């Protein structure tokens, strides 16, 4: 019975999401696509900070690098969207090694502050590489076209939905296999993890690489969605927004990553929509405080109260 009920809920959710272009206006469809993009970044950050317990603020570096890599490959080298996105993902992975290896011995706030340095450095690099990135003026991002056909908002929504769904499934698979367990082991007790043969430094580097890949792909899609990017993408606020998605949604939980992204992206937009522009930030801040006060394990703990998704979670 619970299995049937669960499947039913999944079916309804799938229909609601697939039908979005038919009932959401242009603006809200944009918000929906944006939420999908941030779900990827949120999930990647959850692997690093929620599963492996490494508090990093370098998320914006990977996100921005992914956005610029995709945009540069598409506009300057005429690479088409999918290969550009994939290459952007690997750019993120390469950068993650630069971030992770020197900071391997750091933990908690020390790691957070050290990784913050990379955000400042990457911002300066993006500004100085004017011929590639357009410097502080930023650059336009070409429209995505598939087989000679330009994609409109609806097409972009569905493409994003497919990419995000596939990558989320891959991510869920990862968390259920040996590496997923190793992430949790390093979080639970690095000492014990090492005693059973888990090479903790390697696991940490992999967690960084996974975060970087997901954030860079998210950045790549973000660029083609907003059509214009500049070095302000490399901002600590972007990094903090990734972390807050994970903490508000639920550390170490896939569903939590999704809920967190929805909360952080949609709430401010809805408040603006309802004409609360002036006090929007205050209400959003209040909602953040209240959600952590009453749901310290994240929004995902709401589902446990209803027992809908229990099996999915760890």
């Amino acid at each position, binding site marked *: 019975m619970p299995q049937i009920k669960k499947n039913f809920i999944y079916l309804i959710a799938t229909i609601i999401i697939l039908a979005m272009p038919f009932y959401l206006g242009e603006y809200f469809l944009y918000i929906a696509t944006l939420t999908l993009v941030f779900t990827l970044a949120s999930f990647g950050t959850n692997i690093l900070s929620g599963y492996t317990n490494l508090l990093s603020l370098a998320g914006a570096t990977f996100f921005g690098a992914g956005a610029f890599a995709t945009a540069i490959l598409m506009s300057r080298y005429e690479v088409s969207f999918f290969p550009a996105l994939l290459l952007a993902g690997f750019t993120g992975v390469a950068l993650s090694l630069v971030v992770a290896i020197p900071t391997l011995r750091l933990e908690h706030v020390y790691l957070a502050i050290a990784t913050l340095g990379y955000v400042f450095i990457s911002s300066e690099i993006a500004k100085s590489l004017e011929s590639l990135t357009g410097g502080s003026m930023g650059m336009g991002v070409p429209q995505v076209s598939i087989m000679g056909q330009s994609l409109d908002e609806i097409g972009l929504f569905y493409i994003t939905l497919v990419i995000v769904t596939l990558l989320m499934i891959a991510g869920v*698979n*990862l968390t259920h*296999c040996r590496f997923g*367990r190793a992430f*949790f082991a390093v979080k639970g*007790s690095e000492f014990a993890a*090492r*005693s*059973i043969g888990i090479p903790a430094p390697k696991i940490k580097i992999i967690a960084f690489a996974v975060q970087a890949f997901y954030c860079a792909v998210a950045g790549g899609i973000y660029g083609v969605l907003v059509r214009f990017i500049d070095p302000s993408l490399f901002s600590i606020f972007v990094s903090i927004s990734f972390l807050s998605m994970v903490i508000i949604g639920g550390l170490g939980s896939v569903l939590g990553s999704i809920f967190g992204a929805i909360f952080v992206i949609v709430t401010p937009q809805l408040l603006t929509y309802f004409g609360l522009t002036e006090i929007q930030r205050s209400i959003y801040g209040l909602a953040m405080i209240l959600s952590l006060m009453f749901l310290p394990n994240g929004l995902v703990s709401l589902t446990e109260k209803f027992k809908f998704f229990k099996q999915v979670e*760890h």
Partner: protein
Amino acid sequence: MSAVDVKNLSKRFGGLKAVESLSFSVNSGSVHALIGPNGAGKTTVLNLISRFYTADDGQVFVQGENILTLRDYDIFRTGIARTFQNLEIFGDLSVFENVMTARFRFMKSGVIANMLRLPRSRSEERKNKDRVKEIISLVGLQDIAFKRAGSLPYGQQKLVELARAMALEPKVLLLDEPAAGYNTEEVGKLAQLLLKVKDILKASILLVEHNMSLVMAISDRITVMHHGQFLAEGTPPEIEKNPAVIEAYLGRRYKPKVEEAEYA
């Protein structure tokens, strides 16, 4: 050949000599207890053997291999596994997943194979799952295998640790106070379980323990430490009567008669 050979092992913390030129051997297939009053350096010895601390001097051979030259996450290859005095389980994972983590190095699939659930990744998962389930049943946790380990009572969490160590298929089990927190009846059960585990794995056990009834019940030999140094070694009856040991535990003015009552 002995299972563990500790030779002139020394460790200093600042001015404190936690372990000073300690030597002893654990015979293959035996239960060897390391005892001593609080602060004698027993846990330090275990932490040196499992490479959590780096020894200042000396060697530790496990099945003939000097493990002090290996990295901490590689020593399991010599056939050594341990449990911890203060629980070190992975609270976010289920009992089953906790034990599965110990099979990490028994698996070979990479990150991408895991993500795509390639046949290789699935088949190794299946193979290891069977063995892990066996081990979980052996320690009697099969009914709660899918509960979150962090939510279990202390006694069961200790069994999770034991099962996790067993999943490494060790030849030498280091147990740091397995009986801590157990009542008399539970200690009896634990003694039986440990002997069963030893036989099934065909392993030796090196036991650090304060609970004398467990030590006396299952140990073949006992090494006594005092102030980081070797004090005595022998069979349980020999150690029980050893005046130096009694003095170390109870002080100079006590006479052996008082002691017998406690061990009875």
